[in-house]
C-alpha cells in the first residue's frame, strides 16, 4: 500500500478516524524519529538522580542514548552518548559519579561539561588538524528543569518548555508537587525499564486518559490491591474521586490529561485504610494542601501524557513514564517512581510496595495493558487490517472550551464525559510534526478549537 504524502492524511479528525499505518508502518516510524523526536520536548530524568557534581544518569531521547550529567560546577547537561571520534558510547554505566567520560575505543576523554580533555598522542598526531573545542560531546539544544524533572529538545527553535506545556502545567504539577501542596519536592526512588512488542503510541495514547479501557483491569479490580485492600476494599486504588467531576482535557500542543475536580467543601475521603498511621499522614497532607492551595486544592490529577511520549500517573500510584521508541512494533518503557523526598521512611515504604504491585511488567495492573498493546499492534500489521481505520468517534464534539467545573475554570478543550477527543487532538499535532510544520502550528495555531483563546492572548 502506498502511504499518503502527508501525515495529516492519516488523521481524519472530523470523523474521528485514524489510519492503522501510523502504528505499524516502518516508514512512518522512521519519519517519527526524524521529525518528532528531534524537535519535541522529551523527558530525560530527574534532578534527584544527579544530586552532586559529577553525578550522571544515562538516559534516552527517541532511540538514542544520552547522558544526563551535573558538571563539576553544578550545571546540568544532556549529551548524546556517542564519542565524536568513531561513535563509541562514552558511558555504558546506568548511573554513577565521574570526573571524566573516557571513551573505551581510542581513549578520548571528555569532562562533565562535555569538553574534550584528552586526545592520546595529540601533539604527535593531531596538532594543527584538530581543534578540540569544536569536538565536544553533542549537547541538546535546550534543556529545562521543571520542578526537578529534566526535559530536553534537539531543536534550537523549540519554544521554551513552559510555553510548550501550556495549560497542561497545572495537571502535571499535581504529579510533581508534594502531597501537602508545596511546589516540587519529589524524588525518583527507582526506574523500571522493560521492552514490549507494541508501538509506543499505544502507551502514550492510553495515558492521555483512556478511561474507557477500565474493563481490561477487571481482574485487579475484583481482587483489590489498593492502599485500603487489607480492609476489604476492592479496586486497584482508593476511590478518592467518588464525589468529583472528572475532566478530560486536550491542549493545543497535543498533550492530554484526565483529572478531576472535587466539589466545594470536600473532605479527606476514606483512603489508605491499610494502616491508620499512613491514613493520618495523608489526611494531614490533605489539610495542608487545602490550606496552601485554597480552592485549587480541589483539582486532583489522574493520568496524562505530555506530548509526545511522557506520561504520568498522578496519585495512586505516582510515577512518570517515558515511552522510548525501539521500532514500529517495539517500545522500551522507563517508569520513574516518585515520592515526596522528605516523606517519612514508613510512608515511602508503603508507597513503593504499592507501586511495585501495581505498575510495570510485574505490576498486577499494568500487565494487562501490555497484553492489549502487544496484540493490538500485532493484529494491525496485516495488509487487510491496514486498510481499515481505527475509530476515535467516542464523545466526538462533546467537549467545550474552558468550562467552569464546581466553580473552578478548567482550561483546554474539555470533556465532562469519557472521551477519545484527547487522542484525536494528540494525533492532529503528531501529524503536523511529521509534516514538519512550524512551531506556531505545533503549538495549536490553526486548530479551530483554540482559535478564540489564541486571539485573546
Amino acid at each position, binding site marked *: 500500500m502506498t502511504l499518503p504524502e502527508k501525515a495529516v492524511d492519516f488523521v481524519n479528525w472530523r470523523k474521528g478516524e485514524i489510519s492503522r499505518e501510523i502504528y505499524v508502518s516502518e516508514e512512518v516510524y522512521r519519519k517519527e524519529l526524524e521529525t518528532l523526536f528531534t524537535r519535541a520536548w522529551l523527558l530525560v530524568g530527574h534532578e534527584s538522580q544527579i544530586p552532586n557534581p559529577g553525578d550522571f544518569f544515562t538516559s534516552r531521547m527517541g532511540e538514542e542514548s544520552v547522558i544526563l550529567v551535573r558538571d563539576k560546577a553544578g550545571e546540568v547537561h544532556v549529551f548524546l552518548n556517542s564519542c565524536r571520534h568513531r561513535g563509541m558510547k562514552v558511558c555504558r554505566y*546506568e548511573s*554513577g559519579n565521574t570526573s571524566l567520560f573516557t571513551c573505551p575505543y581510542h581513549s578520548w576523554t571528555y569532562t562533565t561539561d562535555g569538553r574534550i580533555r584528552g586526545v592520546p598522542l595529540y601533539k604527535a598526531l593531531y596538532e594543527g588538524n584538530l581543534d578540540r573545542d569544536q569536538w565536544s560531546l553533542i549537547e541538546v539544544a535546550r534543556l529545562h528543569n521543571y520542578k526537578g524533572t529534566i526535559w530536553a529538545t534537539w531543536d534550537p527553535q523549540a519554544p521554551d518548555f513552559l510555553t510548550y506545556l501550556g495549560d497542561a502545567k497545572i495537571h502535571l504539577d499535581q504529579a510533581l508537587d508534594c502531597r501537602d501542596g508545596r511546589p516540587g519536592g519529589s524524588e525518583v526512588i*527507582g526506574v*523500571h525499564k522493560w*521492552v514490549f512488542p507494541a508501538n509506543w503510541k499505544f502507551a502514550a495514547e492510553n495515558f492521555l486518559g483512556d478511561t474507557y479501557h477500565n474493563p481490561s483491569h*477487571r481482574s485487579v479490580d475484583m481482587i483489590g490491591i489498593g492502599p485500603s485492600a487489607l480492609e476489604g476494599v476492592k479496586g486497584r486504588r482508593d476511590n478518592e474521586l467518588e464525589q468529583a467531576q472528572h475532566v478530560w482535557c486536550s491542549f493545543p500542543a497535543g498533550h492530554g490529561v484526565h483529572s478531576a475536580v472535587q466539589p466545594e467543601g470536600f473532605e479527606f475521603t476514606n483512603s489508605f485504610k491499610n494502616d491508620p498511621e499512613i491514613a493520618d499522614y495523608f489526611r494531614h497532607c490533605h489539610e495542608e494542601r487545602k490550606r496552601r492551595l485554597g480552592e485549587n486544592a480541589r483539582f486532583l490529577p489522574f493520568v496524562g501524557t505530555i506530548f509526545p511520549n511522557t506520561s504520568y500517573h498522578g496519585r495512586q500510584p505516582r510515577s512518570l513514564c517515558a515511552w522510548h521508541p525501539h521500532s514500529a512494533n517495539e517500545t522500551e518503557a522507563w517508569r520513574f517512581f516518585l515520592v515526596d523526598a522528605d516523606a517519612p521512611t514508613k510512608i515511602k515504604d508503603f508507597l513503593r510496595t504499592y507501586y511495585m504491585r501495581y505498575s*510495570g*511488567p510485574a505490576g*498486577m495492573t499494568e500487565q494487562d495493558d501490555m*497484553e492489549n498493546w502487544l496484540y493490538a499492534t500485532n493484529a494491525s500489521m496485516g495488509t487487510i487490517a491496514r486498510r481499515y481505520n481505527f475509530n476515535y468517534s467516542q464523545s466526538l464534539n462533546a467537549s467545550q472550551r474552558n468550562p467552569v467545573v464546581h466553580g473552578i475554570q478548567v482550561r483546554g478543550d474539555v470533556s465532562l464525559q469519557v472521551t477519545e477527543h484527547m487522542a484525536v487532538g494528540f494525533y492532529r499535532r503528531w501529524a503536523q510534526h511529521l509534516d514538519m510544520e512550524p512551531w506556531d502550528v505545533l503549538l495549536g495555531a490553526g486548530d479551530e478549537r483554540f482559535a478564540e483563546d489564541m486571539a485573546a492572548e
Partner: protein
Amino acid sequence: MDGNLERPRIRRDDSYYALRRDIEEFFYDEAELIDNRRFEAWLDMLHEDLRYFMPMRHNVKFGLHAEREDTKEEEGISWFNEDKWTVGKRVEQILTGVHYAEEPLSRTTHMITNVQILEATPDANDATTVKTSCRFLTYLNRVEYETYFFVGKRYDTLVKEGDDWKVLHRRIILDQNVLQAKNLSTFF
C-alpha cells in the same frame, strides 16, 4: 546474601547430601505445582512471613558491584518485593479468568539446578532452617509466538514447619538489566 564465599562451606558428608536431596525435592515439587497451574497448592509451600524479592540489576563500574549492582530490599523499587499476601493476590488474579496477561494461561517450565545448601541450622542432620542457592531456567510461552527465557540465581531461606519445609525468604536474581520481556507474569 549471594556471597556464599564468605561463609564456611558445610562439610559434604552423608547428612549434607540427604538434606540437599530433601531440598531439591521441595524445589521440584514447587516447579511441578506451578507448571501444572496448581497455584493455590503452591502457596501452601510459602511461609506466612514470606519475603519474595527480585531486584533490578544495574550496569555499574568495576568495584561498585557489591554496593550498587542490585536494587535493595530495604529501599527503592525492584521487580518484586513483597509478602505472602501480595503473592496470594497474584494467584487470586490469575484465578479470576480475566487477568488478560495470563488469560489464556501461559505454558511454563521451571527448571532448577545447581542446588547447594549454604547453611543448615542447627546442623545438616536436624536442620530446621536452611539457606540455599540454586540456578533457575524458566521457559514461558504464551498464545502463539510469545516466548521468554528467564535465567538466573535464587537464594532461599527455608524453615521447617512440622514435617514440611516452607519458603521464608526468596531472593531471585534475574540476569537482565532492561527486562527482555513484556511481563513477569509467572512465579519464580
